[in-house]
């Protein structure tokens, strides 16, 4: 939790970078995560692969398939996180994924595994607040952040229930849709972030459809964090095992844009 709260600097937005764990193979993910950090990512989102990624667009779907076809197991994801924590004691890492792989052995098992692997927070796509007891209680009991998602369909009446018991940061999904396809209009992002920040002291990070340094810079002027996923995953899809330097250069272009935005 401390690592997460310290990772949002006061003078600029944080860069949150997503990759799917085990893509293209579990052995390659460590190098790719290092490239994210070298490129200037402040927070790492490590995706747990799932056979049925219902909220993801084609790019991340393909990454899930590449990872699973390479034989990635939950144990591999936890090993990747553990080794990352040894190499990068100060960079927060959150696991992002779907309910079934996270809860199949029971929520307490997963919470313990997160603690043992040095995971700072969890984003579960398909556990809304209505089903929070399926996972949230166990994570909070072990002080693992429960990072909630707000979307364009989350209205003012619903927002307080999402903010209640949220921790780490608030992830604003800026488009009603799946990952990687459309991008939201800057005006709608500004309006939404203002609305969210009025309701919480948590940092607000904005994602879905962010691809260019210019977009990242625009969002970083109004939000506490910028999340980029599909665009990085596509580089891994293109270069495979050799993606490291390409990922680093791309992430650096985002990071530089964010650092000079304010």
């Amino acid at each position, binding site marked *: 939790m401390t690592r997460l709260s310290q990772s949002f600097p006061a003078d600029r937005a944080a860069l949150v970078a997503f990759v799917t764990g085990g893509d293209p193979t579990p052995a390659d993910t460590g190098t790719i995560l290092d490239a994210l950090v070298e490129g200037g990512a402040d927070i790492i989102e490590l995706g747990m692969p*799932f*056979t*049925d*990624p*219902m*909220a*993801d*667009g084609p790019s991340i*779907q393909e990454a899930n398939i590449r990872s*699973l076809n390479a034989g990635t*197991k*939950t144990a591999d994801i936890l090993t990747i996180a553990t080794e990352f924590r040894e190499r990068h004691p100060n960079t927060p890492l959150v696991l992002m994924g*779907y*309910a*079934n*792989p*996270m*809860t*199949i052995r029971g929520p307490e098992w997963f919470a313990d595994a997160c603690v043992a692997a040095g995971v700072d927070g969890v984003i579960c*796509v*398909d*556990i*809304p607040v*209505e*089903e929070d007891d*399926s996972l949230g209680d166990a994570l909070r009991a072990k002080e693992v952040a429960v990072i*909630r*998602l*707000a*979307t*364009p*369909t*989350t*209205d003012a009446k*619903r927002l307080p229930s*999402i903010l209640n018991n949220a921790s780490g940061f608030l992830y604003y*999904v800026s*488009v*009603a*849709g*799946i990952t990687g*396809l*459309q991008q939201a209009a800057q005006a709608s992002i500004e309006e939404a972030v203002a609305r969210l920040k009025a309701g919480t002291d948590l940092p607000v990070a904005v994602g879905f459809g962010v691809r260019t340094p210019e977009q990242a810079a625009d969002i970083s002027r109004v939000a506490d964090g910028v999340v980029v996923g599909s665009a990085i995953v596509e580089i891994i899809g293109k270069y495979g095992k050799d993606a490291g330097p390409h990922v680093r250069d791309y992430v650096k272009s985002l990071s530089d844009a964010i650092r000079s935005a304010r």
Partner: protein
Amino acid sequence: MWTESPPFAKRCAIMTKTTNSPNSYRNQPDERGHFGEFGGRYVAETLMPLILDLEKHYRAAQSDPAFAEEFDDLLANYVGRPSPLYYAEGLTEEVRKDAPEGKGAQIWFKRDELNHTGAHKINNCIGQILLAKRMGKTRIIAETGAGQHGVATATVCARFGFPCTIFMGATDIERQKPNIFRMRLLGAEVVPVTSGSATLKDAMNEALRHWVAHVHDTFYIIGTAAGPHPYPELVRDFQSVIGKEARAQMLERIDRLPDLLVAAIGGGSNAIGLFHPFLDDPEVKMLGVEAAGHGLDKEHAASLAGGGPGILHGNKTYLLQDEDGQIDEAHSISAGLDYPGIGPEHSWLKESGRVDYDSVTDIEALDAFQLLCRTEGIIPALEPSHAIAAVTREAVKMDREQIILANLCGRGDKDIFTVAEALGTEI
């Protein structure tokens, strides 16, 4: 000749009352959409407001006599309900030939294959399209496996003037070509889904992805009693017309209830529709029949027999999955049963012990398919062929005066190509 089932509003009042006796099996789900530990609303935040809104509109519809009236009128005059209750004398006699002395139960069928569009799927589609209209939605999406739900959805969309998009696995499109043509004739757009195993579960993933990007104007007509709350409940309620009619018809015809109900289960909508109105009749036993595919030790689609509890497609239920919670690919010769999950109420009914579940292989289903053709002059779909195989298995163990009622939930015209191929015949 047959007693009409009670009107929809009254049925709903029975099903949703919260003051049922503690021993009732008919008061599920709870207000969070949970059937015991199963069910629930495991969806992305973008969809949550929408399914809460759907629930609100469904509750309003349940207490609106005009909704019930329109639903009942369409079932009677468009679908052709009530469907007949039929004593299958030919099959009964055939089964008795192999039965021990005094054994060989009477076999009765609920003839839901005689519905408009040829399966039970239309009952639910009528209910959901009326909800879509009520909610002011302007377009419809659906997933389909065998194509029966796709055809039923395309049918009601044509009838009510809604643009319709059907997501269907590319593998299923290959083995259900006649239904693709039917859907297109009815004006629907059929979108092939190539992700994953390119079957029903992947079609459902793609429909959910599409829905999340079109929440404001789109209604998703889910075809089985699964998915996020309130879908399992409302699909069950719409399909319960099957069991309500059957119960009244049995009492009218022979003044007693059946000893055993049998229905095939993919997601489980025809089975829950038949079973639910009988759940509080303790003398009536029930058997749900899953698809054992090539065998339970090989590729199959029997989530209860060969799976464990997990979360997929908006609900917690029994799933075919590995130890990491990755979903396994299902297999059944019947595209309509080829799904690695099952409706959450069945998971609950299994754990509560009220309903028994068994499974039938591809080969057993094919034998039953041919048996019914020969003994009754009825070509069943491959889905109820699984139920018929289980019926013949059970009938020889039961006394001659006992009664089995099975749901003949679909007709077999769509399956003749698959069956011909399996039998090594060219058409």
